[in-house]
């Protein structure tokens, strides 16, 4: 059955068979028109690629969405992003969890967020952290509005989003 199989009829001459020590078939390679493909090297390369990609695989997901045109500053001491309310500063406009807001309304918005968090997570620690996502070129004058609003709403931890160097 094996003798008549399609694989046997169509496969290239085996490089193993032709280089066998126990049953050498040296003539096979020279007589055959097509050279035997060495797939082992290809599988080695694929395996290395898979291992490399698996090592770099991130399971945390994307918490921050960086819009086109926004360039985050770089920091070598940046830590993993944790789930917390996000204030985005984009072209001078302030967004609280994706919704456009103003500097005046931000404190109230943050207090509301905190209340909702505490209602949903009665047993966990109170929400104290706030993530600030801003373009690297903005001045502190703009960021100051966020810092002040966070202080007024009782957010003691400020997490500045940055690209990890």
């Amino acid at each position: 059955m094996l003798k008549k199989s399609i694989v046997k009829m169509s496969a290239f001459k085996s490089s193993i068979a032709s280089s066998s020590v126990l049953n050498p078939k040296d003539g096979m390679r020279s007589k055959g028109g097509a050279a035997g493909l060495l797939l082992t090297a290809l599988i080695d390369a694929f395996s290395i690629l898979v291992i490399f990609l698996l090592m770099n695989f991130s399971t945390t997901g994307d918490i921050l969405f960086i819009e086109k045109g926004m360039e985050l500053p770089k920091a070598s001491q940046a830590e993993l992003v944790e789930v917390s309310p996000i204030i985005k500063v984009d072209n001078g406009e302030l967004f609280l969890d994706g919704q456009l807001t103003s500097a005046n309304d931000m404190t109230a918005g943050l207090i509301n967020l905190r209340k909702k968090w505490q209602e949903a997570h009665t047993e966990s620690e109170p929400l104290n952290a706030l993530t600030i996502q801003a373009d690297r070129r903005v001045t502190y004058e703009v960021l100051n509005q966020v810092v002040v609003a966070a202080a007024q709403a009782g957010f003691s931890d400020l997490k500045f989003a940055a690209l990890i160097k």
Partner: protein
Amino acid sequence: MAIGQVGPQDKKGLDFELNLIPFIDLLSVCICFLLITAVWIQVGTLNTKQAVGGQSQAETEKKATLKVAFQKNGDLLIEAKDSRLPAKLASIKISNESGKVNLANLDQALEQIRAADPAVSTALFHPMAGSVYEEIMDVMDRFKKKGLINLGMNPL
């Protein structure tokens, strides 16, 4: 499944060849999946605290603290409080380098401060209205790198 070919002398053939095509298929699918789902930009957060809080000054524990003031043209003024630093390190001015903060000099100053008083681990930042966010982050990053891990941000 056809396993492979053993040549005309089947009974005597001892070499055995695996069909590698399914392995290649599997690895190709794995590579495609991993490439599509890979996150190429690593985003993190530089964690700081509010320098101004609700706690009264009397209740606040006295700790060696550095006050870092951003000045015009990229100059930095670092002043130590409640520390055992010698007078020459208790107040350092780091002059700018072509309008930007001189990070090399800042590194040197921080190394000296940490060597003189390793207990210093807190720094409070006082940026100006015109201070650029990237520069503030660069400076805070240097502080963290040198072991000053408790950073506080002051409002204007």
